[in-house]
């Protein structure tokens, strides 16, 4: 069984984000693998260790620094990597439907039985790519996975949904997107980091696989309003007046 794991390189969750008129300032900012994508890689590696899958291929779309996330995936245990190169801004111009289309082409080219990805990326929080990919391939999907069991070509996934936990079962091939509690990724050890250097990394320019349509345009980016202090009011009438006139609640 072959697994494709899609990873994205995003702004590190710990840094303080600077907002510029045209978006987030990415200059010199610390970037890292999207946490949910890392969880997806870890799950693939665990499935391989359980001998349920034979090969893990990691894929990313982005500029040349995106290869860092691929090398991280290789160091965690992926066997091969594919880098779809583009200089477009990955946090703005590389959008879910375009990504899904490109991934679909790779899936058809290489014949995967399973696609694993993070449920969403922490820069745009779209939470669409996995679902769209499944739609394009006409494959079953299970999103927000917190547990994955695979046996005899059947995937059983426990999903974390608003109402609690839902268990779904489907026949592979399919798409599964991973949620926070699925696993805790391992540390990449130095020997594995070094082994990763000699694992195959294929580079494909994006134009060969698809196009970026920029169908969603970002019209404004602003930082959240600075928290203003509250005020203590003398009585309920003043409270109601403030809620109506200042907070404009009703």
């Amino acid at each position, binding site marked *: 069984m072959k697994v494709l794991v899609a990873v994205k390189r995003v702004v*590190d969750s710990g840094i303080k984000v600077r907002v510029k008129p045209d978006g987030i300032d990415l200059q010199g900012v610390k970037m890292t693998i999207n946490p949910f994508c890392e969880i997806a890689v870890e799950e693939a590696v665990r499935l391989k260790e359980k001998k349920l899958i034979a090969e893990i291929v990691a894929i990313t779309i982005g500029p040349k620094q995106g290869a860092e996330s691929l090398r991280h995936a290789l160091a965690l245990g992926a066997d091969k990597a594919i880098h779809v190169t583009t200089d477009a801004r990955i946090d703005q111009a590389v959008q879910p439907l375009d990504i899904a289309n490109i991934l679909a082409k790779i899936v058809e080219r290489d014949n995967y039985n399973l696609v694993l990805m993070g449920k969403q990326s922490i820069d745009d929080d779209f939470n669409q790519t996995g679902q769209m990919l499944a739609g394009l391939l006409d494959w079953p999907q299970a999103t927000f996975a917190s547990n994955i069991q695979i046996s005899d070509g059947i995937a059983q996934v426990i999903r974390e949904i608003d109402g609690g936990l839902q268990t779904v079962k489907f026949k592979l091939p399919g798409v599964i997107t991973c949620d926070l509690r699925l696993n805790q990724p391992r540390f990449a050890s130095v020997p594995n980091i070094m082994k990763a250097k000699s694992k195959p990394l294929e580079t494909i320019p994006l134009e060969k696989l698809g196009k970026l349509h920029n169908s969603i345009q970002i019209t404004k980016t602003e930082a959240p309003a600075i928290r203003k202090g509250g005020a203590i009011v003398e009585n309920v009438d003043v409270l109601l007046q403030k809620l109506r006139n200042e907070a404009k609640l009703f």
Partner: protein
Amino acid sequence: MQIIRNRLMVNHIPRFGFKYMSDSTFLNEEHLQIQKAALDFSKEKMLPYSAEWDKKHHFPKDVLRELAAMGFSTIYVKQESGGVGLDRLTASVIFEALSYGDVTTTAYLTIQNMCAYMVDQFGNEEQKKTWIPRFGTFDAFASYCLTEPNSGSDSKNMKTFAKKDGNDYVINGSKCFISGGSVSDVYLLMCKTSEKDVSCIIVEKGTPGLSFGKLEDKMGWNASPTSMVLFDNVRVPQSNLLGKEGNGFKMAMSALDGGRINIASCSLGGASFAFDLSKDYLHDRKQFGQPLASFQGLQFKFADMATNLVTSRLIVRQAAQMIDNNHPDKTLYSAMAKRYATDSCFNVANEALQLHGGYGYLSEYQIERIVRDLRVHQILEGTNEIMKVIISRNLLK
């Protein structure tokens, strides 16, 4: 009184990178990848427990074994011998990252690395096969015995003696301030084999005649056991000699430059942690209606801390690179790096303590532990005074 206790300092662990200062001068992509791996491990598996290990004087053998599994115990041992085969600059980056979480354990890890390196460089095939795999997993803990009660800086004047007797050596003498003493499985002993010759002999724990003093009560480095190692007619086969008789000093010299970078790197991580805590504190703590960060005196103090930290990091990495390139000035720069970084980083931690006011004095705020741990780096691996001897001798000859 504005108390900041509910800022759970121990749980306030930024997930990636040094929180505020992480220049990547000298570092290529592989270094950065390895730095990330080391930092992640350090912040998750060491930082939350550092205070407890210090308080309980607990030597975390299990964590050291996990560090070994990450590849951190034989970093610059050749791959053919079973090590990871990386360079001194990578080792410096690793130790700096790990000491962000816990200075003491990382310092012990550097000793293990150094002992493994010595076996790799100077041991015969048999010795390499016996020890390097065991050092690499921390199946065997190693200690390095050089200092004696009467010979510290004056190490050539050591008295511990190994006398040939048939096919054995019989060793008599005592070593002190030995990290890992009484706990380590293997002791790399530097001793005299003739009036002038210093040699290195491997002595295993359990050999009759080998005993240990009580565990020393120290100012810091509490997570690391330190004791005297006593030799009373300890008999070992001559095959335990590492390298050749009389080569002990050359061996020690070749290990020393790297050892100095290692200890300097441990200072960098600890100071980095104190620095990061200080930046947060300067914003959070208010006096006279303003955050401390708005007072110029403290701003200047903080500016000096930052400058000290960055310049220390630069000279340590440069010296590490010079060792890797076998630059003719590597000994000079290693001595400068060790002296400068250990002094500056101690000052960073000490100033951080001052910045924290009364809270800096409380163990709960962790700064005082960094100060106590870093203080000894100005003394061991060659006192900073000896570093000045080396530097001036090198330049004035």
